[in-house]
């Protein structure tokens, strides 16, 4: 590995919009080594022994929380989960006070998932431990963005010059926003496609190409990233029926045929099979959906390691 001049030690990981290319490169490179650890028979390394990580989740989550939990544990950190379905406001305690309480216990990293956009920025201003954003409302989900980039690089080598099409509910998607910034910074052409009612107004001004039909957006794509459609959006009148969505916007074999023959199919999960993605696409040779989960673990290990230890030599602390 090339020696890196930069260090992420103590750096809050809030969004990819505010992350420099060398910082993203460092995380992606470090994650390669982390992935090797996951493949070992005995996974646990003592690198983060004596460090503590709190998963502070204000929204239900299985895969992201488990992924962070295992990431910390494989590296030897103590990991505690605090899950509360009700928002801090409903509960009566303010977010600041919850954070101060966690801080007072001497925690080194707070991994936070919260339904309000900018809540991780709030946390970063409020307390000293490193804040890792595990999804803030509809804003960003930076570790998902990085794991998607990692998955693409693993199969395609370089991100620069690739055409990546993100399909679905862009308006409400923190995954989309993190992907957009990360991929654009690394030189990809990013296309977003979905019903006009689920595309943010003026999205094109961020530098992406916006399509309200999926077919032209898929043409020549190297990567198709399919987002989850939440049925509550239909109840709010943003699209008529799941049936119509599946017929007009769902990614099936025929539509996927418009992309390059070796195009990757991605999905952040959990999938609605038969709605936004057809099962034969989800389980096809082109799909890297399971691999994304594993890569997510590697990315989160890399981030915990880098923000706590700063270096690039994984077993330096052993």
């Amino acid at each position, binding site marked *: 590995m090339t020696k890196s001049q930069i260090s992420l030690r103590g750096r809050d990981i809030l969004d990819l919009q505010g992350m420099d290319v060398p910082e993203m490169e460092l995380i992606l490179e470090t994650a390669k080594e982390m992935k090797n650890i996951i493949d070992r028979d005995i996974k646990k390394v003592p690198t983060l022994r004596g460090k503590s990580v709190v998963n502070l989740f204000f929204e239900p989550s299985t895969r992201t929380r488990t992924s962070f939990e295992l990431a910390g544990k494989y590296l030897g950190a103590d990991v505690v989960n605090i899950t509360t379905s009700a928002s801090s406001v409903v509960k009566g305690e*303010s977010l*600041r006070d919850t954070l101060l309480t966690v801080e007072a216990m001497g925690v080194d990293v707070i991994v936070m998932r919260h339904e*309000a*956009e*900018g809540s991780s920025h709030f946390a970063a201003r409020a307390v000293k431990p490193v804040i890792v954003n595990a999804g803030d409302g509809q804003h960003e989900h930076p570790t998902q963005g990085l794991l998607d980039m990692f998955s693409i690089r693993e199969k395609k080598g370089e991100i620069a010059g690739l055409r990546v099409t993100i399909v679905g509910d862009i308006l409400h998607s923190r995954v989309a*926003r993190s992907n957009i910034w990360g991929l654009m910074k690394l030189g990809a052409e990013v296309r977003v496609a979905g019903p006009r009612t689920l595309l943010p*107004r*003026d999205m094109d001004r*961020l530098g992406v190409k916006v399509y309200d039909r999926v077919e032209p957006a898929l043409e020549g794509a190297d990567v198709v990233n399919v987002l989850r459609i939440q049925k509550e959006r239909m109840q709010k009148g943003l699209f008529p029926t799941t049936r119509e969505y599946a017929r007009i916007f769902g990614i099936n074999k025929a539509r996927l045929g418009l992309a390059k023959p070796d195009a990757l199919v991605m999905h952040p999960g959990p999938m609605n099979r038969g709605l936004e993605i057809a099962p034969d696409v989800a389980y096809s040779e082109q799909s890297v959906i399971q691999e994304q989960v594993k890569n997510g673990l590697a990315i989160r290990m890399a981030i915990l390691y880098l923000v706590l230890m700063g270096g690039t030599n994984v077993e330096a602390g052993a």
Partner: protein
Amino acid sequence: MKLVLKGGRIIDPAQGMDAVGDVLVEGGVIAAVGGEIDTRGAEVFDARGLVVAPGLIDMHVHLREPGQEAKEDFASGTRAAAAGGFTTVCSMPNTRPAVDSAVLVNGLIRRAEMEGVVNVKVVGALTKGQEGKELAEIGDMLQAGAVALSDDGHHVANARILRTGFEYARMFGGVIISHAEEASLVEDGFMHEGAVSAMLGLKGRPAVAEDIAVGRDIMLAEYTGAALHVAHVSTAGAVELIRQAKARGVKVTAEATPHHLALTDEAVVGYDPATKVNPPLRSREHVAAVVAGLKDGTLDCIVTDHAPHAFEEKDVEYRYAPSGFAGLETALGVVLTELYHSGRFTLAEIVERMATNPARLLGLAAGSLKVGTAADIAVFDPAAEWTVDSAKFYTRGKCTPFEGKRLKGRAVATFVGGRPAMKNGEVIG
């Protein structure tokens, strides 16, 4: 008791005056204005290098009495006003309970006399409880001294209610102030809808929601022949609709806030709850249109929409923070910095929009330095540079999107009925 303000630049658009000279105050009223005035037997205020203007009038503030005194009350709110150069403020009725009866109007006027250090005028609710369903006792409130009617905070969604409100208020010469945002388009919206909201993932309040509401309200004012005042105009579309309506002779007036004149939606990046306000901070082209509308007279006055909140209410995630922030103590500085020092407005144009016009619009015996009128005077130093520090505010709402900003121009003295209410930033009384 005689007071002479000596050697200041007297700017009084109501008399077409902009000249260096003295002002004599005797018995709480303006006794002479302009030229050199004999100071024998008089207290002298050295106004050399300063601007002497009619006290500023803010026709849109939230003093939070009754019911929300943790945010503000008459004592704190009027002290903030005095600190900012204001001698008259109009208190909006979205209190707990809403000010929707003459007894409340009367009570507040008395409370203000007891607690306030500047003049307080009361705006009554248009509908009972500001619920938008039944008209409040408009006639009774106007006769008790209410200066206007408003359901500010909400748009009057029901067109029939607004229509009857216009017809009814017109009998008494009452003006209706409208908070114009079409509710169904701004539900759960936290900021201007555009490229910045697309980036931040915050649900938007589109400009068209304001345009629709302003358009409908103008049509109803035109149809009924009543007087409409559009609160805190923030969109290019609304400015144009008002411009066209004025050209047709519709009785419509309008206001703009310092924050909509000075800040764009870019200020929301970073999710500081201090930037959350309704209508929201807009994009650059809207800000330019509001400034242009204020310049050409489409928008008549500048108001603060001073909307203080308690610390703990604003110290939360962006989406949970209440909208609004303090404005009385930053308004003059922001306006002078953005409009005067940028060369876009003259000082006389600014005084006109912050004193002369609001007085004329509400029929107040204020807003000028004419001989015989109450000596409500603002003295300000257009060249004074200062840094906004909310910890030093008199208001309880220590939250502002201008925190830490360097401003040029601020009030240095405020006189209310000849009595000094503020000198060198220190409120007296």
